[in-house]
């Protein structure tokens, strides 16, 4: 299973933080998550090399890069989804509100409620729309009454921009919705457990342009309420939805900065070649 090497003690990591801060915290606003010197190995193969990034509350952060660059792998470190891969090994420091998320006492189920995730393919449970949303609050004991649960379901669906479309058929199956609606249902499901961070791994790659636009609009609306990190293949999407962009290449973080700078005047030649379509 995943293990966190003890090599980066807290005192070491704080000095690292100071020296690396200017390069990696391309953000304003309160820090939500920090990552320092993160390496990820799949068996012998190193998938992520020494990546340090700060995620702030007020900015949507986009990870871009060619297939296999490690952006999804890195995203999955942020709520320990890599724990599910037996040969994966994560080292380095990753904190959420200053807490080491790989610390032995960290409750992973609780962590994944605080750091929710939306996947490439919409994956609603084969249950009713209502139960899809109510599932998380129920297992985390967030509602003490039916009314309270109803309230969470409604608020979550409203925040995900889906309420108006489904309020009359909450008992219909979630899987009967269109692809775009299913994805918004998954976002509502993540929101329902009141997370602090929402990770999105290619959330629009299976959707048509209209459904994509709705998700992008939703990301705008959710910005500031949750720290949002999105992995996308679509550079235009990164440019549209994010305020900070990180470019990954072959497992390394090539450049991290203000999105408008990255797309108009990147510092690194590799970034430039990728975003202008000269890659490979």
């Amino acid at each position, binding site marked *: 299973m995943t293990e966190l090497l003890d090599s980066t003690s807290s005192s070491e990591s704080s000095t690292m933080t100071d020296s690396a801060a200017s390069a990696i915290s391309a953000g304003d606003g309160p820090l939500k998550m920090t990552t320092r010197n993160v390496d990820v190995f799949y068996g012998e193969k190193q998938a992520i090399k020494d990546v340090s990034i700060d995620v702030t509350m007020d900015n949507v952060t986009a990870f871009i890069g060619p297939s296999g660059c490690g952006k999804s792998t890195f995203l999955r470190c942020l709520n320990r989804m890599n724990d599910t891969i037996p040969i994966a090994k994560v080292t380095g420091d990753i904190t959420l509100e200053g807490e080491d998320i790989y610390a032995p006492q960290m409750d992973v189920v609780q962590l994944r409620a605080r750091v929710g995730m939306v996947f490439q393919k919409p994956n609603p449970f084969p249950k009713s729309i209502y139960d899809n949303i109510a599932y998380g609050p129920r297992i985390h004991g967030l509602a003490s009454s039916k009314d309270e649960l109803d309230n969470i379901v409604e608020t979550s669906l409203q925040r995900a921009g889906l309420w108006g479309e489904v309020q009359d058929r909450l008992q219909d199956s979630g899987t009967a919705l269109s692809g775009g609606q299913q994805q918004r249902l998954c976002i509502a499901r993540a929101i329902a457990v009141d997370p602090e961070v929402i990770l999105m791994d290619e959330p629009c790659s299976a959707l048509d342009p209209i459904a994509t636009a709705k998700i992008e609009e939703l990301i705008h609306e959710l910005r500031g309420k949750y720290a949002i990190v999105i992995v996308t293949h679509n550079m235009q999407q990164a*440019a549209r939805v994010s305020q900070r962009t990180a470019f990954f290449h072959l497992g390394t973080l090539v450049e991290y900065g203000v999105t408008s700078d990255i797309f*108009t005047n*990147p510092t690194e030649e590799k970034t430039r070649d990728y975003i*202008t*379509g*000269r890659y490979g």
Partner: protein
Amino acid sequence: MPNSGAEHTVKAFDTDINELRGMVAEIGGRSEQAISKAMRALEKHDLKLAEEVVAEDKLIDDLEKRIDDLTFQTIALRAPMADDLRELIATFKISGVVERIGDYAKNIAKRVPVIASTHKLGPASLLPSMSNIASQLVRDSLEAFARRDADLALEVSERDQIVDDFYTSIFRSVITYMIENPKDIGEAAHLLFIAKNLERIGDHATNVAEMVYFAAKGEPMPERDRGENPTDLLEEPSGDSE
């Protein structure tokens, strides 16, 4: 950051960009030629050559439109980023500026018949030298565009001062001439306007250079200290756009 020169994965994008670069080179070449032809027409008092300059301005106008159309289309269809985006924005602006340079050359050519009586430039004998420098600035600014050469662009911007100095000098001698020869004031005024046209051509070459600098570096060109120009307050009102 120097351009890596690598091709785009989508080859049609390179085709569009190369076509645009070709058209910018062409509009630049035509404008430069219009300046030298107009000045030759003035010096030799060649009315036919002057008419040619006026007629050929249409080609420059057409080129500007074609450049703008293709730039617009390329931005819409290729969604350019970073240096590609900067180059296309620069192309869009440069085509407008160079078209204006063509207008100034045409404006000079239109004054040729009016300066018919003397066949001489008299107090404005420095005009041909001034014109040579202004043409060179136009040529070098477009050369800088073709080579993505920010240093050459900076140099063009600095050399514009020479054109400005020429203008100040011609302005003074023409004013003195007017005072001494009141009967020739009309003709002398035209010489003054021609000097002003050349001065504006220098300014527009600088505008092109600024765009080249921006496209190459991603930041605006540092401000040049222009110093004081005693004739600033006496500029002719704008509005000779054609």
